[in-house]
């Protein structure tokens, strides 16, 4: 019941806000939303404390939903799901606090703005916990609705176009997955009893061609969501038109559904097809890394820049997943969490800059660190974490991904490493142009962060630093959950060709 309660808390909160009178004091509405998201955070922490890393799926719930076609309402958490549920519940209060000062196109609609955010949180938790593929699909598609309204109704210039583009891209992917799910139904119904349960699908017998076809249906959906080059073009538009809070929800949480689902559904249900596809996917991932980074360098719009850095980072995550080594997949999963944090900081702090300056163009800023040093400092920390500076959380995960990939394919790992250099370029150039030098004319209005904004950004910054030094708590949860996945999909980690001394391997693990 814990998971249902956890997912229902924000959903009910959203319902309450939706029917709350519009004329009510916006401060009260915001307080309610924040309180609900904090309750969800507390529940998630309670779940995390009770979670036993070695015991597989936990907090399992299973009930018949649509008996006629074998659909179950089935929830359960493994280490990967837990990590992402924590990410969701940590970021939602942050995002709501950040949305406190958002100037909406229509200020009387604060209620619906916050209600959609809470709804999205609840649905995302459901997605990460669903162990029935039909339920997963329903929730996966349902997350489109809140995001669509968040972008389309509460975004900035060009929001209508961006919202429709976002929706159509994701709907096409989702519908291809639907076709594959229909195929799974036909297979299980033929084999006896129709079922969509993760556990029932694990050992499903299918022909080679069928497996590849179904794999593609799932994979394309997740590659659009993640997004993987060349299916990424909706993301920069959506991020440029959405509010900062919406962008965080979209990139840090909802896009993670794509990479999360690659592990849970693609790798586990279609292991042979995953192996068949992995050479192509690895190359696409590396292209994503470089392409995203190169385009990020060329952006003048801060939000588009961050969107392209995310394309690059998702490339790393997908690279780690499809390298099929213990190190790289664990790194990729950890990266999902860390990328969520660092992108949240970047989107939120640039959102604050944009709100003050009234422009998202890098060229309209300059010398801001003179008048707003704390703001500049937070931007720098967010940026440095994005370029994987050692000591900050993303470094650990990026290193694990690269090291794990190296044992599988040296050329790809070497080329992917270029992404780190390019990352330094796009972040530091952006920082130099906006923050250093003489104060740009027109940028005088960029005030220092106030107390609420510091409180908004602090949790994410603290976590980034903390996880940079002590990633072990999360890794100890993630690694056992990956064991069955890797057992299905790979013949084991490649054996090192060179003898390694005891002291050196310790360093590599950190």
């Amino acid at each position, binding site marked *: 019941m814990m998971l249902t309660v956890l997912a229902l808390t924000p959903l009910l909160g959203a319902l309450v806000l939706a029917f709350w009178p519009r004329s009510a004091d916006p401060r009260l509405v915001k307080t309610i939303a924040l309180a609900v998201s904090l309750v969800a955070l507390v529940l998630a922490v309670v779940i995390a404390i009770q979670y036993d890393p070695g015991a597989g799926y936990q907090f399992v719930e299973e009930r018949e939903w*649509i008996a006629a076609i074998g659909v179950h309402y089935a929830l359960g958490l493994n280490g990967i799901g837990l990590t992402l549920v924590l990410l969701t519940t940590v970021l939602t209060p942050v995002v709501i606090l950040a949305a406190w000062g958002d100037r909406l196109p229509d200020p009387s609609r604060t209620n619906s703005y916050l209600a959609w955010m809470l709804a999205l949180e609840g649905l995302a938790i459901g997605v990460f916990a669903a162990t029935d593929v039909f339920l997963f699909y329903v929730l996966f598609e349902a997350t489109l609705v809140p995001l669509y309204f968040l972008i389309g109704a509460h975004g900035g210039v060009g929001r209508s176009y961006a919202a429709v583009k976002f929706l*159509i891209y994701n709907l096409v992917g989702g519908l291809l997955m639907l076709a594959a799910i229909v195929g799974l139904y036909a297979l299980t119904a033929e084999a006896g009893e129709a079922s969509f349960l993760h556990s029932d699908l694990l050992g499903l017998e299918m022909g080679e061609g069928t497996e590849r076809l179904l794999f593609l249906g799932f994979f394309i959906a997740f590659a659009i969501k993640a997004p993987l080059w060349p299916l990424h073009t909706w993301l920069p538009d959506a991020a440029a038109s959405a509010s900062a809070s919406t962008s965080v929800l979209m990139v840090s949480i909802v896009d993670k559904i794509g990479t999360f689902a690659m592990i849970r559904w693609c790798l586990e249900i279609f292991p042979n097809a995953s192996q068949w596809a992995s050479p192509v996917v690895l190359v696409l991932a590396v292209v994503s890394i470089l392409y995203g980074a190169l385009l990020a360098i060329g952006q003048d719009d801060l939000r588009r820049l961050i969107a392209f850095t995310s394309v690059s980072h998702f490339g790393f995550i997908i690279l780690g997943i499809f390298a099929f080594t213990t190190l790289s997949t664990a790194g990729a999963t950890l990266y999902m969490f860390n990328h969520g944090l660092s992108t949240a900081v970047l989107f939120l702090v640039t959102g604050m800059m944009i709100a003050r300056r009234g422009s998202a163009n890098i060229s309209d800023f300059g010398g801001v660190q003179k008048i707003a040093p704390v703001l500049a400092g937070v931007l720098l920390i967010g940026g440095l974490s994005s370029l994987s500076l050692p000591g900050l959380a993303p470094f650990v995960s990026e290193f694990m991904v690269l090291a794990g990939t190296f044992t599988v394919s040296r050329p790809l790992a070497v080329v992917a490493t270029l992404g780190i250099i390019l990352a330094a370029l796009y972040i530091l150039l952006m920082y130099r142009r906006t923050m250093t030098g003489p104060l740009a004319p027109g940028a005088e209005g960029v005030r220092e962060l106030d107390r609420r904004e510091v409180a908004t950004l602090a949790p994410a910054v603290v976590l980034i630093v903390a996880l940079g030094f002590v990633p072990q708590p999360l890794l100890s949860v993630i690694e056992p959950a990956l064991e069955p996945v890797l057992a299905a999909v790979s013949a084991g980690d490649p054996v090192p060709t060179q003898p390694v001394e005891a002291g050196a391997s310790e360093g590599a693990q950190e």
Partner: protein
Amino acid sequence: MIAPTADTPIPAAQIDYGALSPLLIVAGVAVLGLVLEAVLPRRRRFVIQAIVTAAGLVVALVTSVLVYLDLPDVDEVERVARGAVEAEGAVTVDGPGVLTWILLVVFALLSLGLFAERRFEAGLSPFTGRAADVPGSREESEAVTHRLEHTEVFPLMLFALSGMMLFATANDLITMFVALEVLSLPLYVLCAVARRRRLISQEAALKYFLLGAFSSVFFLYGAALAYGYAGSLNLTLIDEAVTARSDSGGLLLVAMAMIAVGLLFKIGAVPFHAWTPDVYQGAPTPVTAFMAAATKAAAFVALMRVFFVAFGGASWDWRPTIWAVAVLTMIFGSIVAIAQTDVKRMLAYSSIAHAGFLLVGVSAAYLGVADGLSVTSVSSVLFYLFVYGVATIGAFAIVTVVRDSAGETTHLAKWAGLGRQSPWLAGAFTLFMLSFAGIPLTAGFIGKWGVFAAAWAGGTWPLVVIGVLASALAAYFYVRVVVLMFFTEPVGDGPTIAAPGVLTTVVIALAAIATVVFGILPGPMLDVVQHAGAFVR
């Protein structure tokens, strides 16, 4: 024919009136309506006709359910089936057939709410006061001043309904042809009697009549050829001839093609769809709602009955054609709908696209797994027809509410900003659009899922992939309407929302509730359509 002689008595026809009672009740109430038309004073006719029609429909609904519960099980090889061939082989009262009756009567009841709504036209019905008047003439305004109303619309609707019910259960091609005419002729008349914009209403009726008559003849010719091939018009006997055939069956192919033309016309499948947008747009909106939901349901069940029962043995001959028609229909309907600027035309093209999705389910000709209950072509199409019909009636009901001084404003640009003015109405319309688009947690999603599952299980996965891509296309124009209503600034004064009367409100609410409930908890309804089983032959 040998003349009967004294020693070979003619056996009396065995007719189980109980099993046929819903059909007889609807037809009987229609005749009663005509009598009332003759005896009642003009002023009191409208209310009494509406009440009599509603009462007749409720009784028909109850008896249909009773008949359904009473259907005998058939021990057919390994498949679930229930029912029997009645009326000397003319009518099959079986699970899918009676379920279709129930669907049709429900659709008729919902549409009746729109037929009888008199709030919008200052206390007058949505139908013209005197159809014989020249549009725009002095007589016409005279008819308005005298508050004339055509109350024949109620019996006409019942006649059409009885034709549809018979159409869905006919077991020989002649009965089916008669049913086709009985359902079509009243609809032609109903299309012509709109109160507003009478010229395009009459134009719509004429187009529908000419094309409809043309397609009926195709059907009749096909039936004649089928008789030539099989020596019988009875579907069961045709099946025997088809299954036992040893030749390539050129005559059979032509017969199937001709019959398919007649049926695909009623369904509105490409390339026999050309009438749909004009007729949907021109007909009075309540009639459009009734026609879009009910005609499609009856025609689809008839199509499946003919092709699964009579031509089931030749499925390898007709399935490729149906695949092609399904693909064309889905893609054409979805693409052309994008370009529409009129709500009713858009819904018409959307109904064409839906015909394509339904044909995906049909084309699989999937009978289900042996000894088990699973999604089959018949069950998935029945479910889809139900959710599509309900959402369609709901959507057209909302069209009747959005008005300006010249009647309904169907131009999409006038719908901009509807969400600000009346969020509930726009919310309901959004719900129907989402259901049409097949978004999860609406009934339309389960409907789409069902036909795709049947198609995949029947071995046609490429159709499923094309189907989902067409769904994405279709989603684009449904979402566009949502954007228009919620995110676009209203033009000028924006749309005027007439306060909907009780009847229309009830219709919209029921349709919306059904769309949500069968989206979240489709289990019971799926059980029912699966237990209906296969066609009885």
